């Protein structure tokens, strides 16, 4: 019952028909000579598109350190971090961009590492919870002090989203914290403690 991604052949056929130059179609559609020329040029430089497959060497910049490993193109950033690079802060819960436990920061923005290919992260700065300040001015400490966790499985994701939020907004309101943490889910229901922790962290970070 599984489908492939292929879109229906009839679309492609009608497109070809159009390209043969039906006047009616041309009236609703614009062909740009320049784009066509560029494609011809691209075609001539066949080698410019490098196609990767199988186990490939990867270089990832994790928490300021260049790390080398080997993985297939289908390896997610999360699995590569956890299983190949022993960076196990980000957690695998839903594996479907639907919980936030795997949240990491790529080029300054939080993303779900379970739904990001590792191969596409080469050359980008990846930050995980491992790099955060664990002292009394850091976000992890605020979670500890404010009872921001129970089982703890969602916690690295929450701490990461919280840190990214506070990096961009030093003085968030409760509403802004709630919206900023919309992308993380806690099955144990520790939200009250999490929001308190975020407010406390904002306060100490400002004071620091």
């Amino acid at each position: 019952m599984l489908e492939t991604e292929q879109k229906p052949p009839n679309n492609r056929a009608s497109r070809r028909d159009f390209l043969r130059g039906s006047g009616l179609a041309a009236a609703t559609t614009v062909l740009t000579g320049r784009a066509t020329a560029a494609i011809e040029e691209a075609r001539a430089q066949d080698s410019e598109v490098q196609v990767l497959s199988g186990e490939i060497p990867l270089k990832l910049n994790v928490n300021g350190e260049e790390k080398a490993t080997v993985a297939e193109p289908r390896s997610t950033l999360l699995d590569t971090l956890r299983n190949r690079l022993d960076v196990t802060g980000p957690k695998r819960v839903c594996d479907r961009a639907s919980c936030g436990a795997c949240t990491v920061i790529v080029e300054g923005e939080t993303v779900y590492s379970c739904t990001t290919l590792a191969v596409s992260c080469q050359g980008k700065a990846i930050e995980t919870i491992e790099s955060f300040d664990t002292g009394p001015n850091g976000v992890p400490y605020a979670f500890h002090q404010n009872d921001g966790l129970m089982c703890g499985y969602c916690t690295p994701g929450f701490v990461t989203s919280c840190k990214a939020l506070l990096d961009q907004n030093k003085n968030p309101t409760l509403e802004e914290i709630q919206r900023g943490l919309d992308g993380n889910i806690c099955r144990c229901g520790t939200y009250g403690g999490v929001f308190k922790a975020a407010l406390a962290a904002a306060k100490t970070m400002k004071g620091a």
Partner: protein
Amino acid sequence: MNAFEYAGPTSPELAVKAIGRSGAAFLSGGTDLLNRMKDYVATPSRVVYINDIKPLAGVHASGGAMSIGAATKLAAIVHDKTIEAHLPALHRATAEVGTPQLRHMATIGGNLLQRPRCWYYRNGFGLLGMKDGKSLVRTGDNRYHAIFLTDGDALFVNPSSIAAPLIALGAEATLLGPKGERTIAVEKLYQVPKSAADSELTIAADELLTKVTIPRIRGKNATYEIRQKRAYDWPIVLASAALELDGSKVTSAKIILAGVAPIPWRSEEAEAAIVGKELTTESAEAAGAAAVSKAKPLSMNAYKVTLAKVAVKRALLTIAGKKYWEEA
């Protein structure tokens, strides 16, 4: 997910070249495609990553028109001050998509071309959700399915929050294929599939969406959406309206609904009900009623008829500045 070849071209032209074979798919933010690949609903043998192609990203205003590259992240659209000021219909719809992480990842092109969320489709029963020649949707759990065009076999709803405002705003999509570029109205990206072999998208497998362009907007616009949960979910119903006004009299209207049909749903009934009228609570209410006058809900989703009616009314009243539901 299955193994695949990976290409990371550096230009739109090279991307089109790299896709040029059957079974290949463009990968942008990956928030839709990778999930379908993990569930084996999509099994491309080659993935062409387009999210880092510089010319495909960015918001550009020129001569009153606004062009948005297909690989522009939703977060960048939300942060754009011109879009916030002049295209609130687009701004609102984009700001509410998913979660902060999703808006950092997802792109406008991927949003327009994301595949339906129908759980029968997502579980391998095809777009029409058929088993042994019978519609699982019609006889099964159809609470989130269509309320228009339900005489046909396509009962899923188009999932994009962003298609509706773009269509209301008269936006065009530019597509680059192996033989050149073409520009079509955004609504022409979509079609109602007639058979299980059809797609709900008209774009060919080897065409790259490069940008959407919104023409100069003269009137006012707004989006109102209704959700079950604030985050992590799609709106159940969304209505976008773009009006031209002479004082408070509506001289032209475009009203598009999401979440109600297999394509973004243009409500000509609602448009006809409001054009020529003063924009008031009563005329907005009448337009909402007109919008659902031809709705034919399935066994479990009659509630959506009410939501669609209210969404149209509130989108119009947002334009009128009469957000009575926000007053305490």
